[in-house]
């Protein structure tokens, strides 16, 4: 009985690792090599594109290398609104669509400047309460919550793949499955699709709350964007 209660406690707490581990550690050697080398990492194509856009549209106010550390402080909460790095960019460039090459490129360009820095979003546990609940909520035809794979079964196999902790420190990331760079929201929607749940639209409150919670959960991990994931 004690064991059952202990397991239940672990499942319910949602943040139960001895140590947070980046998705990189659950990847194959080939994927890790692809990420490690900027001349082979396909995500760098978007970062390059972002650099060109930045030079064209942003550099009259913000010098090219001036965004070091910025991505590591996002997402945050300002005046009651959740602001992710993408949304911060969208405020300045409201014409860009979610998952457009230009938005991903600018995000990757800014995020890349924080590579290797510890993720320190300016939020506290109160801010992420709703996100934590969303993370623990069973949903979809499979009736699974995020926690059931990414806490209870992280490190185990699902088919041919190793289940990661679902850490978000590499996004926007190049997923081999997509063949392109994609945002964290796209990744979250992909997981929700996997458990056959309803997909909240891009930019919706639910996805933002989940993003915020994941940032708090991944606090201290090294920033990796543009990372490569399977």
């Amino acid at each position, binding site marked *: 009985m004690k064991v059952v209660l202990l397991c239940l406690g672990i499942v319910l707490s949602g943040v139960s690792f001895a140590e947070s581990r980046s998705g990189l550690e659950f990847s194959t050697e080939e994927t890790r090599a692809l990420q490690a080398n900027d*001349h*082979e990492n396909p995500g760098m*194509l978007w970062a390059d594109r972002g650099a060109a856009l930045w030079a064209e549209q942003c550099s009259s106010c913000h010098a090219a290398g001036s965004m070091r550390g910025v991505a590591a402080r996002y997402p945050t909460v300002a005046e009651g609104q959740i602001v992710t790095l993408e949304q911060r960019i969208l405020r300045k460039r409201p014409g860009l669509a979610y998952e457009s090459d230009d938005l991903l490129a600018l995000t990757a360009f800014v995020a890349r400047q924080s590579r290797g820095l510890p993720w320190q979003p300016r939020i506290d546990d109160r801010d992420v309460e709703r996100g934590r609940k969303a993370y623990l909520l069973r949903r979809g035809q499979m009736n699974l919550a995020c926690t059931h794979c990414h806490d209870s079964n992280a490190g185990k196999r699902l088919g041919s793949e190793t289940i990661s902790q679902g850490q978000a420190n590499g996004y926007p990331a190049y997923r081999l499955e997509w*063949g392109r760079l994609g945002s964290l929201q796209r990744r979250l929607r992909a997981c929700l699709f996997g458990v056959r749940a309803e997909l909240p639209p891009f930019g919706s409150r639910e996805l933002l709350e989940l993003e915020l919670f994941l940032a708090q959960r991944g606090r201290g991990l090294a920033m990796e964007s543009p990372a490569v994931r399977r």
Partner: protein
Amino acid sequence: MGLVRIHLPEQARRGASVEARVLIQHPMETGFRRDAAGARVPRNAIHSFLCRYNGVEVFRATLSTGIAANPLLRFYLRAAESGKVEVWWLDDDDIEGSASAHLVVV
């Protein structure tokens, strides 16, 4: 813009073999996928790639839909004289791409 990354060593010794890496942004559509509306996404893959070094063709590759999106090509050149390394490719939509880099031979 952001379409290609060419990597060559900073400089190379005369006569040495030099690794070139070329990463091209391209969807490499197989022609078998369907979009959200169920319509077939037409095949569009890079089918020809070549590299010239100081104007002389030194490497050529034929690609097809079995190659992943955003292909990475890695091949070797023999360093002779300092000069231009140019790459060129052509896809099924007859859209050409090209880029170049400078190789310094000492």
